[in-house]
């Protein structure tokens, strides 16, 4: 056995500084960013860049095509997404000429009624920002107050930080963000969570994008009481309620995606269903459409079972008028019952 006290004391090579300890502060800029910037050669000033080609290389057209074909309506939302994509593409082109561009602020706020597609769009946004190189991973972590705010002193900060760590490299989606702030209780732990979020939104823009979502009026009130939050959000995007025609299109899209179709008379019944359902309380736009279709599928299945006859592809894929007509929406349209609404759509 070699006496260990005579082992040669190996030295760290002078050319390499380990652990990054010799360059404090460099972490703040993000570990990968500076390296990438150095690797790319700067183009000469008279070079030309084909933006369409750049765009094709990022593959964002897939995202846009999916947006257009899978999401009905939402024109203002889609426009804003296009603008953001254009900005990021131009920034990339500028970077190739060595023009410095500060990283744009892409924290967003989505407002709109339930079921208007806020979560769905947020998910696509994460994918889009990933393809454009703005985010490193492009996943989406969806949270509400309960995930961020603790139950006792000292519980909130670790909880919020834990969520932030999970969201790093992607999008943090905070649904009904106004619940973080309780006006009536200034010692509410939500305030602590907001402060941590504010800090990260300001200082770690390269690490994540925060998207807040909720009803418009309550979100506005939230920003009035938390001006710091409002000013850190560059994009306030409002999701309009769908028109009857749009709901109808959404329904058709959904049943096609599920491998069903309407019988000729069901098409009309479905539209009438939507027309009535829209006027009833607790209408949740596209989500109500989805629920209606789920219920119709149940009735369709029971109908086939009860008929006790051999079935073919045609029967298995066709939703007929009666699958919708037995909904309570039709039964008591004038006395709009809402107590067990979600079960009776």
């Amino acid at each position, binding site marked *: 056995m070699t006496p260990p006290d005579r082992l040669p004391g190996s*030295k760290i090579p002078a050319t390499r500084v380990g*652990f*990054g300890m010799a360059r404090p502060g460099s972490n703040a800029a993000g*570990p990968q960013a500076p390296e990438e910037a150095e690797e790319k050669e700067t183009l000469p000033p008279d070079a030309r860049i084909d933006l369409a080609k750049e765009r094709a290389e990022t593959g964002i057209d897939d995202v846009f095509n999916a947006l257009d074909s899978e999401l009905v309506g939402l024109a203002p939302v889609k426009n804003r997404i296009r603008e953001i994509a254009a900005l990021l593409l131009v920034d990339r082109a500028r970077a190739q000429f060595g023009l410095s561009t500060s990283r744009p602020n892409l924290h967003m706020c989505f407002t709109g009624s339930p079921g208007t597609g806020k979560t769905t769009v947020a998910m696509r946004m994460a994918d889009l920002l990933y393809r454009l190189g703005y985010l490193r991973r492009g996943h989406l972590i969806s949270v509400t107050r309960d995930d961020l705010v603790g139950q006792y002193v000292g519980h909130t900060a670790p909880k919020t930080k834990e969520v932030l*760590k*999970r969201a*790093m490299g*992607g999008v943090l989606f905070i649904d009904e963000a106004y619940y973080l702030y309780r006006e009536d209780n200034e010692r509410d732990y939500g305030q602590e969570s907001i402060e941590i979020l504010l800090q990260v939104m300001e200082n770690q823009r390269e690490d994540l994008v925060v998207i807040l979502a909720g009803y418009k009026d309550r979100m506005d009130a939230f920003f009035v009481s938390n001006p710091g939050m409002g000013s850190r959000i560059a994009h306030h995007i409002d999701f309009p309620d769908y028109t009857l025609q749009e709901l109808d299109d959404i329904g058709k899209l959904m049943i096609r995606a599920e491998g069903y179709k309407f019988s000729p008379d069901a098409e009309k019944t479905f539209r009438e269903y939507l027309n009535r359902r829209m006027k009833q309380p607790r209408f949740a736009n596209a989500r109500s459409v989805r629920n209606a279709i789920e219920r119709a599928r149940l009735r369709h299945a029971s109908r086939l079972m009860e008929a006790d006859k051999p079935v073919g592809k045609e029967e298995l894929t066709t939703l007929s008028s009666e699958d919708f007509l037995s909904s309570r929406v039709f039964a008591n349209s004038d006395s709009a019952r809402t107590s067990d609404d979600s079960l009776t759509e």
Partner: protein
Amino acid sequence: MRITQGTFSFLPDLTDEEITKQIQYALDNGWPCSVEFTDDPHPRNTYWEMWGLPMFDLTDAAGVLAEVNECRKAKPEHYIRLNAYNANYGKQTVALSFIVQRPSEEPGFRVERQEWHDRAIRYTLHPYAADKPHGQRYQQNGQQ
């Protein structure tokens, strides 16, 4: 004496960029990471103190590196290591473990010889730092 142990013990200390890449490799494999520290670097001291719980469900290395940096700030003169656990074997198994910080001075170990019966000699290692009580080792200017 520069103490080495763990996955990259034969390499020079990793830079933060290299650490980030290793963390990302672990996360991409679905291995949760954890940060541990100690001021008792004896090779047989397997149980270092935990800097928080292992971090589950992370996607990106930035969150883990942030914890490493937090730990460095709080324990600038301790050994810190990063572990990654693989649960595929039915229990949490260390898949990756390497040092990400060491004290600025490492006095090393002395060998101790114990006379045993029949003139036999038993050897053991004793870290100089361990002469001081836990928490007072490797202190620089009163820092822990």
